[in-house]
């Protein structure tokens, strides 16, 4: 048996083990500062600039520039459309956090995010498990499940509005057939939120299902077979082997669906233009500036609050949740 290789696991097994090369420390210390910008290093840097600069300019112009502008606007008392504004410092933030609307908006945002993220992921996983079975028609079913995700949110919203319409919607027709009156899905603020969440989950669970399906299909079969031979039933195999091994997928989905859920706009705008009961942070920012109130500075402050929340959630997820992830 050959000795285990230490520093180069890809070397052929019959090659004798070698020591790692020693870099003479004195040589690096003696390198003059100027040489970093000459020869190959300079050429590499120019290539780096040629590759990165266009993207950096675009990101700077369309992401960071508006972001900085928005932070500046959040310190103004500015009516949209007005040529003048007054600097008010942090007053817009204070107004938001001391208003009655803050708890409503933050509460609606929390409910919408938790339900839509949880609903999309749980239902997506269940659908992925169903699609992972080898039965006829799964190819069509996979396409059908994923299709709503690529549809326009505006179109989806309009179609579902017809379904939910208490006057002549399909749902009201079914309910009347059962002797029931249709609830006021569109006018009742509490039901409006339920309605939008149902449609959001329907539209997005296909994405979760496809990502989970990819995860399920890459699970090592030998481990599952070994567990089965040891007597673990399917439920136990799922919770003790599949779920832990799917944790990178779950982690990825948790971040991406939470970010997109916090930024959900199109369905809310189309289905409940007043935002009555469905005003999440992002929609409240829109309503305050463009809906009717024209409070551009206040709206900018709400946008900054949303940005801060997204940043904190992402950092917390990366710092704490990722520790629970099994990458191999």
């Amino acid at each position: 048996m050959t000795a285990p290789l230490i520093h180069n696991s890809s070397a052929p097994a019959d090659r004798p083990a070698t020591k790692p090369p020693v870099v003479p420390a004195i040589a690096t210390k003696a390198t003059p500062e100027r040489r970093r910008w000459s020869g190959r290093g300079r050429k590499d840097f120019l290539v780096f600039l040629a590759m990165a600069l266009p993207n950096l300019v675009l990101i700077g112009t369309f992401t960071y520039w508006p972001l900085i502008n928005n932070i500046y606007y959040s310190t103004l008392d500015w009516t949209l459309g007005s040529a003048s504004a007054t600097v008010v410092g942090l007053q817009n933030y204070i107004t938001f956090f001391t208003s009655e609307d803050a708890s409503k908006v933050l509460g609606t945002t929390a409910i919408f995010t938790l339900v839509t993220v949880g609903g999309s992921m749980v239902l997506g996983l269940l659908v992925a498990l169903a699609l992972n079975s080898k039965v006829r028609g799964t190819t069509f079913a996979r396409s059908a499940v994923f299709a709503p995700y690529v549809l326009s949110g505006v179109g989806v919203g309009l179609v579902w509005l017809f379904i939910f319409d208490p006057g002549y919607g399909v749902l009201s027709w079914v309910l009347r057939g059962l002797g029931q009156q249709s609830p006021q899905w569109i006018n009742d603020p509490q039901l409006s939120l339920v309605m939008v969440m149902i449609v959001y989950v329907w539209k997005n669970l296909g994405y979760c299902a496809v990502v989970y399906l990819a995860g399920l299909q890459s699970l090592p079969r030998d481990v599952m077979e070994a567990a089965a031979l040891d007597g673990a039933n399917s439920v136990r195999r799922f919770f003790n082997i599949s779920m832990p091994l799917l944790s990178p997928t779950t982690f990825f989905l948790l971040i991406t669906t939470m970010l997109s859920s916090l930024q959900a706009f199109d369905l809310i705008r189309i289905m409940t233009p007043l935002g009555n009961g469905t005003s999440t942070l992002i929609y409240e920012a829109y309503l305050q500036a463009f809906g009717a109130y024209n409070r551009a500075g206040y709206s900018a402050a709400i946008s900054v609050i949303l940005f801060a929340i997204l940043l904190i959630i992402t950092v917390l997820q990366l710092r704490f949740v990722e520790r629970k992830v099994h990458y191999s």
Partner: protein
Amino acid sequence: MRTNLDRRHFLGLAGLGAGAAALAACGGPSTAGTADAVDTASIDFSGVKPAASIDFWTNHPGKSQDVEKAIIEKFHAKFPDIKVNLVTAGANYEEIAQKFQTSQAAKTGLPGLVVLSDVWWFRYYSNGSIIPIDGLVKQLDIKIEDFQKSLVDDYKYEDKQWALPYGRSTPLFYYNKDHFKAAGLPDRAPATWQEFAEWAPKLKAASGAQYAYIYPALAGYAGWTLQNNLWGWGGSWSKDWDITCDSPQSVAALQWAQDSIYKDGWAGVSSKEAADDFAAGITSSTISSTGSLLGVLKAAKFNVGVGFLPGGPEAPSGVCPTGGAGLGIPSGISKEAQLAAATFLKFMTEPENTAAFSAATGYMPTRLSADMTAVLAATPQIKTAMDQLTATRVQDNARVFLPGADQEMAKSAAKILTQQGDVQTTMTELKKTLEGIYTKDVKPKLKA
């Protein structure tokens, strides 16, 4: 994660941040304390040549795209040196306002002429976004005295004319004649809501429709349509700048509306568009804009009747608000473009063009001299809207002048009409909200 943030890097980042903040401060509104008011003294168009091309931003009120195109074609034939580009700038008044105000903030892409609704023009005025047109009226000899007085006066403020009426409407009472006949009711709109309350159970029983009456969709200007109920009971959203939506009369009006849904069970609330619900036969009656008239007549498979809005126990008549849109000229464009826009504005509101617009949509003709003979022969129901104009009232300040008030009224109406919320509590909360809007967003801009 290890970071290499030494003093040099930190100072560099701080410098970058300060530079970015300084650059950001260069854009957007001025914070130097300049006023928004338009300098009316400088609006002199003598010696100005009209621009060769202007944009006309419209939402095609009352599905008027075809008639707007036809009027523009006629304009091009008469004024070949001015090209008018018809731009669909939104699906409703709110979307067009959104686009207009965004362009105003960006200081670019403004139109020559813009459709502005009853709740938006005052905000454009207070932001300095539109110009007074008195000088242009004089220079172009626009016959202002030939306009319907109540409609043209809606755009007067501080003795200046800020816009001209265009797609102007009132709500109408629409009823299904076949349903009324089946219920043995007279072929007319009810004189009062009390009379309709007596009719409603018979109507619901005989028609087979889901509702005898459907309240217009709350997202679609509930503050406007419920104005009728409030006035009928002697209430209002406001009297001048005093918010009165929580007065006993206002509360009684909305309590009656709530009872018609929950206690009496003959009324419902539309989810999207009451005129569509009515045309689909879901309800035997509703109230909707005169701008919906032609659409309803085309879509309905039954005989449609229209009438004046019903009165209430305190005011049996004169309880109909005016509404709809006018046309204004932005302040942020060149004088050449403003003159070209005014030339087109004059043409657009000529008697024959307002008659054509009325014939195509159902909106009221804005000119007294408009020959409506052919129009009324084809669509006699338009006469009802025209006759009702004499019984209209200018809307309450709270609805038209407070930014976002319409949305707040709609939310309160939803609480009352779809959640059976306590009317007095809801109206007290609304009063607090509206007073907050007035104090913060309107009062500082009013001249003493």
